[in-house]
């Protein structure tokens, strides 16, 4: 037992050292500022490894936490993960509950990491769809880490891009309505001012983009999807106009340093 523990410690030390050397080499060249990931393949991984239902998601959560650490060491500034889509509520209630429980555990781990490293944590999505306890935990963690900016982790929960667009259009309408009702009426009747008012009443692209859930981060440089799938599944198709879309054949829990290096 002691011998096994010792060997594990030695292996872990050496793999950590090799990883740091590799990251030193990679930092010589350009490093992406923002990496987004679609964590696909947890259930297939569990099926392949003959694990019980839900164990794939445990392994997936572990892989996400490892990736956050790798990105932090590599010097990536933003990492965004698609943890739970609105469409995922159609899964079995037991699976949905398992994912929610995992989310809570991840929040606890991230809160502990944030005490020692300046990591900002955001939760992007329609948080009103979460239960009150999770929603409060998420808001508490966001509040506690709001002042950090060196490394930003965004977890997309109850998110889908079309819902994000509708939400931002709603917010833009509310803003313009407020302006129209309370501020617009106090302007002069001069024709030139009327034209300017008309422009101010119009919703512009910049209004929509600033009201999106994902307005907290810049557009991703790379979007990685695992599980050998080649679609966006309603994730960041607005923000990935100029992003490299990378598809990895490996399942999400098996993602490692070398996949990151290859991408």
């Amino acid at each position: 037992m002691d011998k096994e523990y010792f060997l594990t410690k030695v292996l872990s030390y050496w793999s950590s050292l090799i990883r740091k050397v590799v990251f030193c080499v990679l930092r010589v060249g350009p490093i992406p500022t923002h990496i987004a990931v679609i964590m696909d393949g947890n259930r297939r991984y569990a099926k392949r490894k003959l694990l019980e239902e839900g164990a794939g998601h445990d392994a997936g959560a572990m892989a996400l936490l490892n990736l956050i650490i790798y990105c932090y060491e590599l010097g990536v500034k933003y990492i965004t993960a698609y943890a739970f889509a609105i469409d995922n509520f159609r899964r079995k209630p037991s699976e949905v509950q398992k994912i929610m429980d995992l989310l809570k555990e991840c929040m606890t781990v991230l809160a502990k990491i944030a005490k020692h490293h300046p990591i900002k944590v955001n939760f992007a999505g329609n948080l009103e769809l979460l239960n009150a306890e999770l929603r409060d935990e998420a808001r508490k963690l966001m509040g506690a880490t709001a002042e950090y900016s060196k490394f930003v982790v965004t977890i997309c929960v109850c998110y889908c891009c079309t819902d994000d667009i509708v939400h931002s259009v709603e917010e833009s309408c509310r803003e313009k309505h407020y302006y129209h009702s309370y501020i617009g009426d106090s302007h002069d009747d001069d024709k030139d001012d009327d034209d300017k008012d008309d422009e101010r009443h119009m919703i512009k692209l910049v209004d929509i983009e600033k009201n999106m859930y994902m307005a907290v981060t810049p557009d991703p440089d790379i979007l990685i999807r695992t599980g050998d799938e080649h679609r966006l599944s309603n994730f960041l198709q607005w923000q990935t106009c100029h992003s490299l879309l990378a598809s990895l054949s490996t399942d999400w829990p098996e993602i490692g340093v070398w996949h990151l290096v290859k991408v």
Partner: protein
Amino acid sequence: MKSQKWSSSKMESERRVLSFFIFKWASCYDALLLMGGDMIVNILLRLTWHLLHVTIHLCYFAINIANALESHLISKGLLRRYKSLHISKLQYLAIVIESEDCRTSNVIELLQWLADLGVKHVCLYDKEGILKKSKDFILEKFDGATLFQENDVLLDQPLMTLEFASFSDGKEAVAKAANVLFMKYLKSGSTSSCQGDQIFTESQMGEALKTVGLCYLSDLLGGNGPEPDLLLVYGPARCHLGFPAWRIRYTEIQHMGPLKSMKYGSLIKAIYKFTMVQQNYGK
């Protein structure tokens, strides 16, 4: 006594001066060693980075050679599994082309290949709108297609229907649709200013997009609206270049390389891979 004290203090001061210079020389030497050491480490890191870069390039080069060979075999019909394509599964195909790469001769050849395979509905997209400006020329040169009109019946069309799109049909269209909804919101006299209240739905957004004339294909294509099933990217990188976000929620995206080196075999392989995909739509 005094001379002894003086000589010992002189020796002490000389010792101090000497040790000062030795220290200075040593720290300069250390600094030089550090700088030299840093330079050596930097050079080693750069060499290793370039070596890694070359290794990965060689791997991708080998993969590209293998893909080109496979594509050649598919074109010749030598690979059995690509002989029968279930083309009916591909109801709507989108093609994204890098604007700098937009050669109409290549585009027409690609459309001919798609027509031969039996693809009925195609959307051609490039960011700058070059294809949109050349649509009359393309339709003139390519006999097998018509421009899609909004109220056309799409099923069992003898000719391919072509749609042309650009960046202005994406984000800017959503801004226009937002203004349509805003006008309806103002007219309805709704005073909901509570953050939690939902005032629009996704279907209302979809209808607004149709109103601004940018969602041509409707539920006639199978219930999900004008969303391409497959999007082929012809360009240097796998990137959708701003294709309307509302329409590529569940679209399979395949990268085909630059348009000038397009291959018939690669096209068949991409369509074949699409027909083998199973989607859960989040379930």
